[in-house]
């Protein structure tokens, strides 16, 4: 029984898989405000955040009104994941 509980605790610590964008220090990252302003030319941004996986992530809508969620590499601004 103890092994099962222990195993369960171990497994739950592995949880919450994450998109990772960079390992570079934040000093190398693009300025958030400038980057966000730039994105606003293409997207309507509802939320802009820095993820635990070191990404700039936005939630919003594209020009066609479709929902978008995009993870950017904060160093070069490239799209790492989009859905």
């Amino acid at each position, binding site marked *: 029984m103890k092994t*099962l509980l222990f195993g369960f605790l171990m497994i*739950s610590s592995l949880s*919450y*898989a994450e998109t990772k964008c960079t390992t570079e220090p934040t000093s190398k990252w693009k300025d958030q405000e400038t980057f966000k302003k730039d994105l606003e030319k293409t997207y309507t941004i*509802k939320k802009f955040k820095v993820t635990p996986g070191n990404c700039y992530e936005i*939630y919003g809508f594209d020009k066609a009104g479709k*929902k978008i969620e995009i993870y950017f590499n904060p160093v070069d601004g490239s799209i790492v994941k989009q*859905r």
Partner: protein
Amino acid sequence: MNSRNPHWDVYTRLIHWLIAIPVILNYFLETGDMPHKVVGYLSLFGLLLRALMGIWSQGTANFKNLPLKKEEVKKFLQFLFDRKFQAYPGHNPLASWTYIFIWLNVLFLGISGFMMGMDQFWGLDWPEDLHRFFSYTMQVLLFLHLLGLALDSIKYKRVSFLAMITGKK
């Protein structure tokens, strides 16, 4: 099914795992991705089946047969401390309450998850916060579930963990 040798029928077992396995899997599948959503909805589907079973079945799966009353819970707690033997054909009072909270938790995970994908709530923090909150309460409830099974094992001297696989209680 009788009180001497109760067992879980194959539908109960299938539905249990149809709810349980997706819930556990979704801790590993990245939130928001299609697999996470599909798996989550599988769990909701299992929950729907369990609800139908709870309404229509004749045996211990029927919601009416869950020993939920305060007197039942008190009696069960008493018996736990008195060490007197008492077999429940279905779920005992504490287990019954835990399962109700588990089912509700899965339902709220499903609702908050679905809301996260809706245009009206897109990008808002609170549906995500809710979903995350219920993922934490889910872990607590899961722990209680396993703890109860362990205590059941010790109390009745049986391998309770296998019951939902083999059917034998």
